[in-house]
């Protein structure tokens, strides 16, 4: 909204100036103060408390990603968590009045819960859960895939606290034909059309019933920040983060695959069979993305490090594998010709990313690319080039690379 507002504001000023024939002192400030919402701020640092140099891919709607070195913490703080918004952030959230409705054709009895109900009538659970945007890495696809051109930083792993989805589903009761759940959130469609959802995705019942699938009301021990879904967010770790609906008002239990906004077409779907780059794929040949693939990032050092010859270089980062665990982690400084094994921790819990580190000695002076490659418990490793092209550029899990110079 910002740029349009500024744009309009300026022309309004211009007409004022034209009328009274003189410049208005502080006119700019005067009009900018009129911008009614704090959400109209240009930079995510002051609007959402993000670290300064995160990358703003879009400011209406907000889509912001971290740089790899921002993500060094084992538990991602709110200040470094990427933002993926499909619509407008709700502006009138009153937690005291917030309710969650669970209904749909496959619930035994639909129910409405207040936040207080969720916090007091059900046992809370806390898990560290990896949330990665399905389109993380989109910027590398060729031919280009449309949408926000994410680099590597649309991933986070925070500690989420809330009610198990399973406990809620048990509370309402499921009919025998229940197969899927879907969410509806309070974010308005970009066009302002009240009858249209920005996004309404979901997961199969089996995923909804996992221990770790939460309706979360806390992130890292505090209320969830507004931009990340306050006061209530579905969290389905290891799946495209779009399955983890924000500002959740309603959960529907379906007797078929949920058909909400962005469940069909090319959205969050991959060709069921691999296709040639640039191919057209018809709707019936597209399959919904479920678990995210194995991936890793180098969070230290930041790309561009200049080091002295003879010195050891300590590197570290995270690795994750959707529903699976990461089994091995390797690093290469010769474009994948040879690989060195890294130390690797176990995850804090299922669906949490794991930490790796390694000390290396670069053989001589010069330019190096350091490549990181994780392998999951099924033996799938990250590809060194960009993997299978797909219409919307999802699931690029190619090895992360940083540049280092030895002088």
């Amino acid at each position, binding site marked *: 909204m910002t740029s349009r507002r500024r744009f309009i504001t300026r022309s309004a000023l211009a007409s004022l100036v034209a009328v009274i024939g003189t410049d208005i002192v502080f006119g700019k400030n005067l*009009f900018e103060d009129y911008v009614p919402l704090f959400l109209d701020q240009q930079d995510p640092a002051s609007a959402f408390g993000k670290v300064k140099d995160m990358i703003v891919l879009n400011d209406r709607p907000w889509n912001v990603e971290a740089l790899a070195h921002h993500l060094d913490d084992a538990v991602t703080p709110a200040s470094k968590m990427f933002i993926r918004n499909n619509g407008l952030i709700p502006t009138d959230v009153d937690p005291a009045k917030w309710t969650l409705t669970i209904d749909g054709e496959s619930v035994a009895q639909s129910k409405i819960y207040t936040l207080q109900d969720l916090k007091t009538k059900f046992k809370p659970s806390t898990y560290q859960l990896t949330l990665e945007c399905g389109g993380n890495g989109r910027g590398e696809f060729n031919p280009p895939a449309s949408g926000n051109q994410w680099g590597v930083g649309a991933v986070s792993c925070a500690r989420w606290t809330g009610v198990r989805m399973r406990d809620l589903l048990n509370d309402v009761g499921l009919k025998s034909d229940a197969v899927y759940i879907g969410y509806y959130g309070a974010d308005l469609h970009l066009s302002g059309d009240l009858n249209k959802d920005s996004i309404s995705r979901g997961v199969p019942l089996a995923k909804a019933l996992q221990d770790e699938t939460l309706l979360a009301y806390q992130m890292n021990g505090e209320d969830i920040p507004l931009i990340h879904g306050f006061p209530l967010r579905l969290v389905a770790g290891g799946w495209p983060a779009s399955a983890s609906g924000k500002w959740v008002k309603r959960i529907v239990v379906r007797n078929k695959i949920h058909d909400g906004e962005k469940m069909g*077409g090319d959205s969050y779907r991959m060709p069921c069979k691999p296709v040639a780059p640039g191919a057209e794929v018809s709707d019936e040949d597209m399959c919904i993305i479920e678990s995210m693939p194995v991936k890793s990032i180098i969070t230290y050092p930041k790309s561009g490090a200049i080091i002295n010859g003879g010195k050891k270089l300590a590197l570290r980062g995270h690795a994750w594998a959707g529903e699976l665990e990461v089994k091995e982690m390797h690093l290469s400084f010769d474009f994948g010709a040879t690989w060195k094994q890294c130390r690797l921790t176990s995850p804090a819990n299922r669906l949490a990313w794991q930490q790796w580190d390694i000390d290396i000695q670069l053989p001589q002076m010069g330019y190096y690319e350091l490549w990181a490659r994780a392998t999951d418990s099924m033996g799938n490793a990250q590809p060194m080039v960009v993997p299978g092209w797909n219409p919307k550029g999802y699931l690029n899990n190619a090895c992360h690379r940083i540049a280092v110079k030895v002088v």
Partner: protein
Amino acid sequence: MEDRFIKLVRLAVQAVSLVLAVCALMTIGLIYFQVFYQPSHFEFGETKQLGVVTSIDDVKDGVHLPTGLKVDVNFELVVTNCTGCHSAKLITQNRANADGWSNIITWMQETQNLWDLGEDKSLIVDYLSKNYAPEQQSRRKPLANVEWYELED
């Protein structure tokens, strides 16, 4: 005689104040409209036309600073039709050929409430496919924009 003159003057003053008042009202109306005007609150289904007010100060190196769009033929159509729902950053970060841009626009028309663009659609596609065309690239580009720094331990 003097009476008539005074009457005339009074009339003139009244006329002038009336004109001024109307002007002032119109100005206030104009400002109100421009400041509080929200394109998203339009009726659906009708073609939306926003006045594109721009000045030479807003353009640097061929780029329109308020939107970030390249200034070229049909630029105004793109500002008018494509920056109401989302910022132009969603356009400037994407690359596609004419078919690709046309598909993106069709997708928005079918699923995201984008209105019928009539004959403007092909003009918009011309602008987009000329200014935001795919670049030649390899399967993986060399690392770019590396900011070198001394690593201290």
